[in-house]
């Protein structure tokens, strides 16, 4: 113990600690206590009003401030989707003594089932206590009054102003626009929503989903001081909510309206596109649903009604229905046959069908001697059986793939389907079997394993009529997006995209003239012709059940054939192409008037525009080259030198 000196109890050392030092410590005591008293003075006398106020209003609460989503407009700036202010009821858990005891009263006042409240509470059980739980959205004035009147019994209930989505009524353009909804627990666990919070509202379908990043703003919050009854008495600070950006769609409200009306009472899909650019002008899928039901409170009844409907109301059939194209496929067959120099000189004797590989394939009529010029407008199956047999499946598949079949188009909407184009390689891969030549015959009329979506058909046939210029369909103008967003969209939605395929001008002329003839006297869709409009197209009647080609009966009910029609105007370098799928509609000719209504509405509107009244009546003559118009601008079939405004002129039919 070297550290410790030895002590002696009775030491004679009686020296004391200097009195001055002990005296000094008294001053230190006084000083310390004086400082503390001053600190108390500062709070209790100088700051009393401030601290009394803080004590009275002693609760700091984070109230959410929802950022309004961006509005959605049509191409001319007319509003499609708006927001409306609403009030939401939230539950604050921080100061609740016994939440479970309050549930029955809450359930009664808010008109909610007890188990629904309990389920909501369970869902938020793991989130921090200061996070308010959204209990009921878009509450009624009565429910608001209930909350106000029960501030003492139910201080945990609070109302916040909210912004809700207002969609067009009756499911107008519902599949295109989509809807928003609260994130589910599963969503929150996925990487895509890693930075989202429970209760966040996101786009769940359509444009709302694809462009959620642009449309959604950034929610803000307010640090609110409330009294012990939960009533707001002040604000400490706030994070301002940033509203979402507005979005302009390529949709033309007038064309959309015509399309919705034309599809009234039909199940199926309609898509109208500007083939020069790929801009979608209208998109309709039937049956439809009411997205307003999804954005506020989805009732169990409505949900089960939707999911149990055999006609799939939630499906956007323009991009998701994969069906046999029927005779519309003959345009692609004609392209293949002409480009391969087979079809030009081919003449087939149609006696109501023909026999290939020991089997009879029927045609619906006795067309007599048929060449390519009549095969399209008459839709002679015998001609295309023969052509398919001559070309072989892989040649057909080559051309079909070039115009985009069996690939997504890359449209900027979620969950597009790719369809199917059979070939020897495809069959080996999927069925591990070789292709039999007999199978090629029915492919020639768009039956067999061929499956397309309406959007694929619109792009393919519109592209062929544009001399081989195929465009990526899209519903939002890419140049109006931030550049990085535009490129992100392009890579998120891969597909056949923009493409130019070589088409010999004479073949282009042959096909487009024949398509125009289909709307003329004797054509399959002659009844749908539009006076004064250069309207061209191709019908398709696709068997639903048996893929046997050439069945003469259409079937009934759910086995009734699907009626297809792809129409365009003008016949060459069309300004609009419309693909119509009428499920179980019977003859393709039945779909032609549907498309005709839309095209008529579009052309009429264009003509009403100033400067478009000058019409140039002229025989539709092919240009010296296919004039695939690289700058993507609209091109009328009239000679470009006629009128400076001619480039914008819609087509006029040869009188």
């Amino acid at each position, binding site marked *: 113990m070297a550290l*410790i000196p030895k002590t002696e*109890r009775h030491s004679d050392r009686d020296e004391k*600690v200097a009195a001055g030092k002990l005296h000094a410590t008294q001053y230190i005591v006084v000083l310390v*206590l004086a400082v503390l008293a001053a600190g108390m003075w500062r709070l209790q006398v100088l700051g009393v009003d401030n601290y009394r106020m803080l004590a*009275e209003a002693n609760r700091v609460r984070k109230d959410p401030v929802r950022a309004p989503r961006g509005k959605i407009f049509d191409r001319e700036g007319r509003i499609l989707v708006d927001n409306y202010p609403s009030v939401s009821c939230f539950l604050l858990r921080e100061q609740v003594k016994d939440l479970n005891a309050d549930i029955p009263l809450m359930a009664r006042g808010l008109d909610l089932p007890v188990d629904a409240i309990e389920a909501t509470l369970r869902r938020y059980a793991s989130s921090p206590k200061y996070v308010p739980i959204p209990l009921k959205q878009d509450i009624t004035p009565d429910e608001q009054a209930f909350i106000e009147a029960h501030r003492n019994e139910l201080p945990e209930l609070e109302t916040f102003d909210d912004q809700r989505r207002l969609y067009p009524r009756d499911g107008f353009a519902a599949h295109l626009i989509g809807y928003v909804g609260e994130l589910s627990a599963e969503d929150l666990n996925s990487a895509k929503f890693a930075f989202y919070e429970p209760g966040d509202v996101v786009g769940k379908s359509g444009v709302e989903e694809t462009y959620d990043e642009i449309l959604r703003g950034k929610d803000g919050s307010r640090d609110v001081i409330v009294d012990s009854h939960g009533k707001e008495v002040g604000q400490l600070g706030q994070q301002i909510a940033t509203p979402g950006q507005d979005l302009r769609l390529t949709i033309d409200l007038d064309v959309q309206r015509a399309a919705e009306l034309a599809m009234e009472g039909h199940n199926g899909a309609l898509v109208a596109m500007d083939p020069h650019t790929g801009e979608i002008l209208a998109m309709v899928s039937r049956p439809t649903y009411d997205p307003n039901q999804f954005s506020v409170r989805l009732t169990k009844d409505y949900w089960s009604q939707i999911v149990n409907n055999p006609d799939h109301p939630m499906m956007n059939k323009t991009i998701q229905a994969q069906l046999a194209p029927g005779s519309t496929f003959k345009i692609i067959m004609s392209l293949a046959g002409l480009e391969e120099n087979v079809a030009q000189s081919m003449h087939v004797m149609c006696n109501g069908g023909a026999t290939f590989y020991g089997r009879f394939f029927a045609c619906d009529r006795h067309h007599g001697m048929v060449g390519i010029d009549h095969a399209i407008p008459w839709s002679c199956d015998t001609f295309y059986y023969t052509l398919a047999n001559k070309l072989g499946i892989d040649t057909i598949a080559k051309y079909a793939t070039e115009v985009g079949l069996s690939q997504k188009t890359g449209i900027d909407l979620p969950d597009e389907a790719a369809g199917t184009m059979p070939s020897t390689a495809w069959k080996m891969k999927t069925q591990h079997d070789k292709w039999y030549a007999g199978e090629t015959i029915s492919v020639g009329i768009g039956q067999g394993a061929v499956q397309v979506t309406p959007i694929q058909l619109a792009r393919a046939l519109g592209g062929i009529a544009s001399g081989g210029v195929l465009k990526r369909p899209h519903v939002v103008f890419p140049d109006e997006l931030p550049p990085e967003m535009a490129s992100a969209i392009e890579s998120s939605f891969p597909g056949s995209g923009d493409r130019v395929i070589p088409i010999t001008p004479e073949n282009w002329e042959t096909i487009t003239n024949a398509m125009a003839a289909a709307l003329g006297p004797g054509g399959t869709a002659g009844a749908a012709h539009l006076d004064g409009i250069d309207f061209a197209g191709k019908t398709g009647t696709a068997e639903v059940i048996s893929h046997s080609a050439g069945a003469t009966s259409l079937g009934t009910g759910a086995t009734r054939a699907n009626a297809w029609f792809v129409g365009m105007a003008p016949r060459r370098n069309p300004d609009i192409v419309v693909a119509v799928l009428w499920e179980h509609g019977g003859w393709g000719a039945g779909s032609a008037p549907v498309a005709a209504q839309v095209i008529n509405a579009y052309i009429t509107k264009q003509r009403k525009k100033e400067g478009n009244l000058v019409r140039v009546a002229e025989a539709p003559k092919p240009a010296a080259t296919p004039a695939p118009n690289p700058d993507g601008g609209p091109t009328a079939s009239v000679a470009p030198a006629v009128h400076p405004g001619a480039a914008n002129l819609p087509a006029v039919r040869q009188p």
Partner: protein
Amino acid sequence: MRRFSSFRDFDWMLLTLVFLMSIISVLEIKSATLHTKFRGFDHKQIGFLLVGLALMFLVSRIDYHWLVDIAPWAYGIGLLSLVAVKLVGTTVLGGKRWINLGGGVHFQPSEWVKLVLIVMMARYFWGLAGRDLSWVDIAKAFAMIGVPMVLVFKQPDLGTALTYLPVLVVGLFLGGIRMKQTVVLLLLFAMIGGGAWLSGKRLKGYQMARINSFINPDTDPRGTGYQILQSKIAVGAGGLWGKGTNQGTQTQGDFLPIPYTDFIFAAFCEEHGFVGGVAILLLYFLILMRLIENAQQASDVPGTFIVMGVAAVLLFQILVNIGMVVGLMPVTGIPLPLMSYGGSSILFTFLALGIVMNIRMRRFVN
């Protein structure tokens, strides 16, 4: 020649003051726990106080010279108990501070080590016989206090570790440290402290957060700054006269954190105002002045050092605790002597006062 020391020489004045504080403490604990699950703590506090008073009388009968004699042994045992608490201690609130003695009795060695250090420091400076302190003497004093301090700091219990500091400071001051040495030491600590602050590695995360939240409590009203903010609101809302017993909304509404221990002064100030708070300060003033008077009257150097050591620890705890409550100091978790609820703190205070009593009773011995 030894005069018999009797209870006539007992410091009845000091006892009265302490008794008064104890009553106030019990009443405030009762008020502060009225609507909480800690209701009834006032009764337990009365139990602690009775045990404390009994021990105080008992210790006052022991000649403090004997304590000075056995101080090195007690110091050794103290260090061992601090090591033991690290090995077999019970973890409470993130720190290993307690040894479970069984039967519901927990023992916090760091509190009684404080007492040992006071006696040990007295013995050490007595041995130096009033000569000028050399740097070696100072270094030894630092080592003596520093070793247990580091052990307690590692528990981790920054608050209690800090209460060892005033023992060292008062020892050096009374022991005769020179002004030059003081300046050099202060500069040294400023540098070390600054370095530690910059590296931020010396303090635990929550300790760092406490200091940060002290500097700017409004940045995160729901986090660590919450306690200081609520405490300041409670004190400030009390105003000049207070809201009255059981009337403090901060205390009764559960906004004030642990209003029966570390923040008991905030609860008292809310309910009894500036006037009540100053009355408490006045009581402390009288107690401390009485202690210093006892120190002056002590018959020898170790007596003076022991009393002054006790006074220094009490003053330091008052400063840090009330300073925290009124927002002048960071949250360190140091209880307010004679006010805060808690057995270990009461036992330390009453044992220390028992020794002071003994020193006073023997003031005429020589």
